[in-house]
């Protein structure tokens, strides 16, 4: 028997309702260290809601979420301290427009981790270097391309040394040629051993980088498996139809 590493993320029968609409209908998900889990599925299937529940930007209606063994939904858990352990990158980039790239990265370091400006700047420089933008530290978001902005957003998250990174359609708002640079950074991040949960339509990236792919539909995980299974001829009909639609 092989020894199973302790999961970084453990989600049990997660439900989320908006009024009468069931966005999540009992989702179970376990992610072990250094794993890259890809979530695919039609829009409205609950992918983004699931991701947003994982750092409680959305409050789950019921179920449980454990991150690094800590009950995320417990009243005793300081969610602000936990969130630094859960990096998140958004579809809409969301850099702070009134701050330079460096200041975007250092804000949480200084205000959440109470670092000095000098300490924070050192970490920010290293983080920006990891995403290949050390030379853009002094630039404002408006002076950066969409791809560069998204890489700064990744630097902002990894500077906090998260245990797990959540990507919510990180390339959907970018031109294909700009998306490439973001995917390259994500690939590097994965190679450095970062645990990642990625919601995306980048099927090629999923095929070559994912350890596991989840196909979501109607608020549940309809099928899950390795890329070989999901993209293979034996995947279930709905999954195959969806994949065919995307890679068309």
């Amino acid at each position, binding site marked *: 028997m092989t020894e199973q590493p302790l999961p970084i993320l453990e989600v049990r029968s997660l439900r989320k309702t908006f009024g009468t609409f069931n966005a999540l209908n009992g989702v179970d998900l376990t992610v072990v260290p250094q794993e890259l889990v890809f979530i695919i599925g039609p829009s409205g299937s609950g992918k983004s809601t699931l991701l947003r529940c994982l*750092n409680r*930007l959305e409050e789950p209606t019921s179920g449980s979420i454990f991150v690094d063994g800590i009950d995320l939904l417990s009243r005793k858990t300081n969610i*602000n*301290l*936990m*969130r*630094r352990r*859960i*990096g*998140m990158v*958004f579809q*809409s*980039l*969301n*850099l*702070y*427009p*009134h*701050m330079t790239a460096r200041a975007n990265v250092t*804000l*949480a370091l200084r*205000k*959440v981790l109470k670092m000095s400006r000098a300490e924070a700047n050192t970490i920010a420089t290293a983080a920006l270097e990891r995403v290949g933008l050390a030379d853009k530290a002094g630039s*404002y*978001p*408006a*002076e950066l391309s969409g791809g560069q902005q998204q890489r700064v*957003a990744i630097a*902002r*998250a990894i500077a*906090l040394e998260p245990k797990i990174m959540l990507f919510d359609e990180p390339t959907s708002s970018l031109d294909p040629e700009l998306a490439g640079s973001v995917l390259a950074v994500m690939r590097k991040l994965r190679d450095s051993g970062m645990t990642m949960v990625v919601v995306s339509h980048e099927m090629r990236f999923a095929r070559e980088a994912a350890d596991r792919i989840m196909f979501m539909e109607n608020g549940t995980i309809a099928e899950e498996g390795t890329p070989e299974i999901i993209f293979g001829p034996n995947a279930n009909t709905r999954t195959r139809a969806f994949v065919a639609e995307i890679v068309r």
Partner: protein
Amino acid sequence: MSGWSLFIDTFFRPDLVAQYLPAILKAVTITVQVAVLIVATGLASGLMLAVARSFELRAVNLCIIIFADVFRTLPPLVLVLLVYFGLPNVGLTLPSFAVLWLVLSVVLSAFAEEILWAGILSVRRGQWEAARSTGLNFVQTLAYVVLPQAIRLTIPPLTNRSIVITKNVALGSVIGVPEILNVATTAQSFVGNCTPLTLGAICYVVLFIPVVLLGRWVETRFAWGRA
């Protein structure tokens, strides 16, 4: 006498300019002092109210909304008269300066609150989410991420409101504050000539052009790129 010289004689007689310029300049310093005080307290309390409103506590917000709506709709002149002549009846007598400052500060704060609140609402939700996702709490997010953007967006309307409220310092003339309009109209009735009033008007223009320019400068100073 030609029409043009008649106009000069009625509105800009050099000897009256010389005679009343010192008194009107003194009135300008009073207008400026009261205006600076009003703008400072009005904007500061408007900001505090807008911040308080973002906590979305029902009872508090209801009070703020009623406050803002009442003081945005009441004519400031009515308030000035009410406070100056009405409050002494209940045993509270305030000097005319204090009344003018208090009333116009309150009116400005009502407008500033609404403007800043609109600014806070116009900052996209993604900005809140990005900040919260890095562990910043609500207050930190408001202070470092949302308010700087909201204030930057609302500088032009806040500048406008500050100009309007500063012009309302002229309402002090009905309760005896020796500001520009008061001094000018008194002089006008004394000499039976409009020259002092013209001087007063010129002073307003000279006074406000720097304010408008300052507003422009602040706007560009806090611009970030061309987003």
